[in-house]
C-alpha cells in the first residue's frame, strides 16, 4: 500500500470502533504515558481523535499520527477504564498494522520478526556462538541485579541494563520435554516465551521444578518460537501469524490440558490474539489454533486456581521483605492479582509488604522501551521510587518484561533489591 487514499480508506475501516469513544477522558486517569506527560496526544482519547480525523481527511500528517501511536505501552489500562468499552488495544494494533503497510517496516524489525524469530535453532546458535564474546558486548557490572550494559549496542538500547544473556537457551539446556501426567492427573504444554528461553532461565527452571513437584506432566517441544506479540504491536501481522502457526504446529503434535506460561503477554497473545488473526489461515492451522489457544493460562493462576495446591503460611520471624508489582497484562487482560501474592505468601522466608501503586505500569511495554527510552525511564522511575520506599529485599512480579525493566531501573539507581518471578519465590519452598 503506497497510496495515501488507500491508507485513508484502510483507517476508515476502524470507524465503527472509533465512534464508541465518547471523549469522556476517563482514560487520562489510568494511562501511564499521560500520567507522565499530561499531553492529550499521549492518551487514548487524543490518539483516537487523531485517527478519526485522519480517516476523515481533517488531518493530513500521518507521521504525526504514527508518532503518537508509538507512544503507547499497549498495557490495556485505558480499555479497562473506558466507560463505553472502546477496544483501544485492538484499534491501536490495527492502526499500527495499516500504517506499517503504508510506511513500510524498518529493516531491523523486518530482520528480527521475519528472519530471526521464526528460527529457534538459528537463535540458539547465535547465542552459543556469541557466548564467548558476551563479555565484550555486555561487560558485567557485578551489581545485585546481575545485569550488564552494552556500550556497543548503545545506539539501539541506550544506557539500558539488560539481563546477562545466558550462553545457552533454556530449550537447549533442558531439551524437549515430554512427560506423562503424574499425581495431579494433568499434563501441560510449557511455553517459556523468549525471555524465559533466553534471559530468565532461573524462572523457567523454577516452573519445571514446580510442575515436577506437583506431579504435572510437561510437554515442551524444542522448536517453539516467539508468541508473536512484538511483531503484532509493530504492525507486522504477517510475521505474527507465521509465528502463531509455527507454534501451533509444534504444540499440535501432542495432547495436553493447558498451555502454561510464566509470561502474561504470551498468555494473552496465545489465548486472545492468535485466534483473532487466524481468519485467513489455512484450515488445519485455524483448527489447531481454535483447539489449543483457549488452553493458555498463566502459571500463577494454574498453580493457585487449577491445582489448588498452594497454601499461604505465616512468615518466619526473620523473614525477608518481598514486595509485588502487578504486570499490566496479567492484571488487566488476565484479571489476575491475588494468585501471585498467594505464591509469595506460601514461602515462610518472606513477608509481603505492598508498595504504593503496585498496579501502576513499570514502563516497559516490550518494544515501547526501545522506541521511547526517555518516557519508559520516566514511568519506570515512579515505579522505582515506590519499590525503594518499601525497603524490600526482593521485588517479585510475574512477567519477564517487567522483571527486565525493574532490574534495569534498580541497576541504574543502585537499588539493592533482587528481582524475581513469583514462581521462583514459591519454588524455593519445594
Amino acid at each position, binding site marked *: 500500500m503506497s497510496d495515501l487514499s488507500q491508507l485513508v480508506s484502510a483507517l476508515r475501516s476502524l470507524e465503527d470502533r472509533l*465512534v*464508541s469513544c*465518547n*471523549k*469522556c*477522558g*476517563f482514560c*487520562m*486517569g489510568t494511562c501511564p504515558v499521560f500520567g507522565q506527560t*499530561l*499531553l*492529550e*496526544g499521549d492518551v487514548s482519547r*487524543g490518539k483516537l*481523535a*487523531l485517527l478519526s*480525523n485522519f480517516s476523515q481527511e*481533517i*488531518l*493530513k*500528517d500521518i507521521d*504525526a*499520527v504514527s508518532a*503518537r501511536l508509538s507512544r503507547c505501552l499497549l498495557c490495556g489500562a485505558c480499555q479497562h477504564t473506558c*466507560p*463505553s*468499552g472502546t477496544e483501544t488495544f485492538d484499534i491501536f494494533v490495527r492502526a499500527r498494522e495499516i500504517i506499517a503497510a503504508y510506511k513500510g517496516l524498518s529493516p531491523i524489525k523486518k530482520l528480527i520478526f521475519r528472519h530471526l524469530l521464526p528460527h529457534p535453532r538459528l537463535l540458539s546458535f547465535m547465542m552459543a556462538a556469541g557466548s564467548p564474546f558476551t563479555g565484550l558486548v555486555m561487560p558485567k557490572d557485578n551489581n545485585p541485579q546481575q545485569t550488564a550494559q552494552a556500550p556497543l549496542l548503545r545506539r539501539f538500547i541506550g544506557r539500558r541494563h539488560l539481563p546477562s544473556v545466558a550462553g545457552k537457551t533454556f530449550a537447549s539446556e533442558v531439551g524437549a520435554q515430554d512427560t506423562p501426567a503424574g499425581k495431579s492427573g494433568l499434563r501441560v504444554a510449557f511455553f517459556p516465551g523468549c525471555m524465559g528461553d533466553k534471559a530468565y532461565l532461573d524462572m523457567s527452571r523454577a516452573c519445571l521444578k514446580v510442575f515436577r513437584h506437583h506431579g504435572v506432566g510437561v510437554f515442551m517441544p524444542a522448536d517453539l518460537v516467539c508468541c508473536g506479540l512484538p511483531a503484532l504491536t509493530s504492525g507486522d501481522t504477517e510475521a505474527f501469524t507465521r509465528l502463531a502457526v509455527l507454534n501451533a504446529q509444534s504444540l499440535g503434535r501432542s495432547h495436553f490440558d493447558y498451555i502454561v506460561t510464566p509470561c502474561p503477554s504470551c498468555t494473552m497473545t496465545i489465548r486472545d490474539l492468535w485466534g483473532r488473526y487466524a481468519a485467513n489461515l489455512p484450515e488445519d492451522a485455524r483448527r489447531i489454533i481454535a483447539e489449543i489457544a483457549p488452553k493458555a493460562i498463566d502459571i500463577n493462576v494454574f498453580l493457585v486456581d487449577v491445582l489448588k495446591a498452594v497454601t499461604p503460611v505465616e512468615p518466619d520471624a526473620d523473614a525477608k521483605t518481598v514486595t509485588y508489582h502487578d504486570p499490566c497484562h496479567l492484571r488487566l487482560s488476565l484479571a489476575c492479582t491475588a494468585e501471585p501474592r498467594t505464591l509469595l505468601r506460601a514461602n515462610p522466608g518472606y513477608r509481603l509488604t505492598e508498595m504504593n501503586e503496585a498496579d501502576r505500569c513499570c514502563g516497559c511495554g516490550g518494544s515501547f522501551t526501545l522506541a521511547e527510552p526517555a518516557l519508559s525511564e520516566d514511568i519506570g522511575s515512579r515505579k522505582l521510587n515506590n519499590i525503594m520506599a518499601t525497603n524490600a529485599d526482593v521485588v517479585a512480579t510475574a512477567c519477564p518484561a517487567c522483571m527486565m525493566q525493574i532490574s534495569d531501573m534498580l541497576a541504574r539507581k543502585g537499588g539493592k533489591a533482587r528481582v524475581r518471578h513469583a514462581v521462583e519465590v514459591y519454588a524455593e519452598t519445594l
Partner: protein
Amino acid sequence: MLNASLIKEFENLIGRENVLTSEADRQNYAYDATPYVPCVPALVLRPTQTGTLGKLLKLCYENDMPISVRGSGTNLSGGVVPENGNGVVILTNALNRILEINTEDCYAVAEPGVVTAQFANAVAKAGLFYPPDPGSMSVSTLGGNVAENAGGLRGLKYGVTKDYVMGIEFYDTDGELVKTGSRTVKCATGYNLAGLMAGSEGTVGIMSKLIMKIVPPPKASQAMKAIFRSTQAAAEAVAGIIAAHVVPCTMEYLDNVTLNKIEDFKGIGLPRDAAALLLIEVDGHPEQVKEETAAVCAVLERCGGEIQLATNAAEKNKVWEARRLALSALSRVKPNCVLEDATVPRSKLPAIFKAFDDIAAKYRLNMGVFGHAGDGNMHPTFMCDMRDKDEWDRVEKAVEEIFDHALALGGTLTGEHGTGITKSRWLSKETSEGTLAFCRKIRRAVDPKGLMNSSKIVGVK
C-alpha cells in the same frame, strides 16, 4: 495576530515544549467531552508555573486572541471548546501542585490543575474530607470544577463545588493578580469575587490559586437499597424523605432501563423486573445515623419500597457498585450517549419522571434515567448514534422538551454540567432578557475586547 515573533514570545515565557503549534497537537484540543462540533485552536499554551499566567494572558489579550482555559477537558456543555478564528487554549493541567493542607484550620490550598480525586485523596490522608465528587473526579481538575461549579453524588447534604471555595487568586485580562476570599471561615472583605468565579466558565479570568474548605469526615454511615415496583413510588419516596426533613448524604435513582443495562453489562444481581431502585446513604454521628436510617426506612416502606440494608463494608460496596456502573452500562449500548442534567425541586420528581417517559416515547428514543434524585438532579441519558441524522434530530428535540418541562416545574436547565455552548440558547427561558443583558454588561467590563471564552454562557456582545 499569531506570527513567528509572537510564538517566540510565548516560547520565551513558558518554554518551547509548552507552546504547541503542530496541526495534530492543535486538533487534540479541539473538543471536550460534549457531543458537539469541535473547533481547532490556532495555538495551545501550557504554562507550568502560575507566576507566568498573568503575562501569558496579557500577551494573548493584547494580540486579540480569543482565549479558552482548559483543565482536563471533561466538560459536558462545550465549555472548553475553543473559539472560532485564532482561538488559543491555555491548559492548566500542568499547574498541579497541592500547596498546603491545613488540618488545624480545615482548609487546603491548591493550584487549579490538581486532579480532583488526587486532591480528595491527599485530604483524606491528612484525616479530613473534601466532599464534592463529580462523576469525572478521577480525571477532572479542581479549577475546572470551580469554573463549572461541578456537583456530584454528595450534593444533597454536602453541597457542590462553590460551597467549598473559600478564596481564589486569579489573573484578569490586564495580567493583574486579583485576590478574593480568605483562609478564614468568614470573610466580608470587598465583593464576593470568588462567588463570581465559581461557575464563570473561563469568562472572567484565569485562576492561579484556590483555597478550598475541607471538613471532618463523618464517623459513621449506613448504605441501603430500596426496590420499587413503580417509578412514581420511588419518586414519592424521595420527595417524602426530603419532606420528613432527613438529609441523606446521597440518594441516587436508577430506572428499569438503566438497571437492566447494568445487568446486561456485568450481571451483579439487580432485580431486572424492578421499576426503579433508590440507593441511599446516611452519614454522621452513629446515633444520628441510627435515627435517620429509621426515618428513611419508614418513608421507603410507606411508599412500597423493598429495603435492603448494607450490614458490612462489602455489602455497602455492592450497593454503590450499581451506581458506579450506570454510565458505563448505558454508554455501551450505542456509539454515543447524551447525558442531560435537568434539575427540579424534589417535590416535582414524580412529574419530571413522567415527562421523561412521555418524551422518550414521543421521539422514539432509547433512554435510561439515573441520577442524584435526592437533590432533584437527574440524568436522562439518550443512547444514540450521532451519525444517524434523523435520530440525532429527535434527540435534540427531546432534550429541548426536557428543558421546557424542567423549567415549567420550577427547575433549572443544568444542575451541574454548566451552560457552556449547549445550554446558552435556553438561558433566557430560565432567567430573563434583562438578566442576560446584565451578565453581558459585567462581561464587557472585565473583558472589553470580548475574548474570554466569548461564545460561552451568554456571549459577550
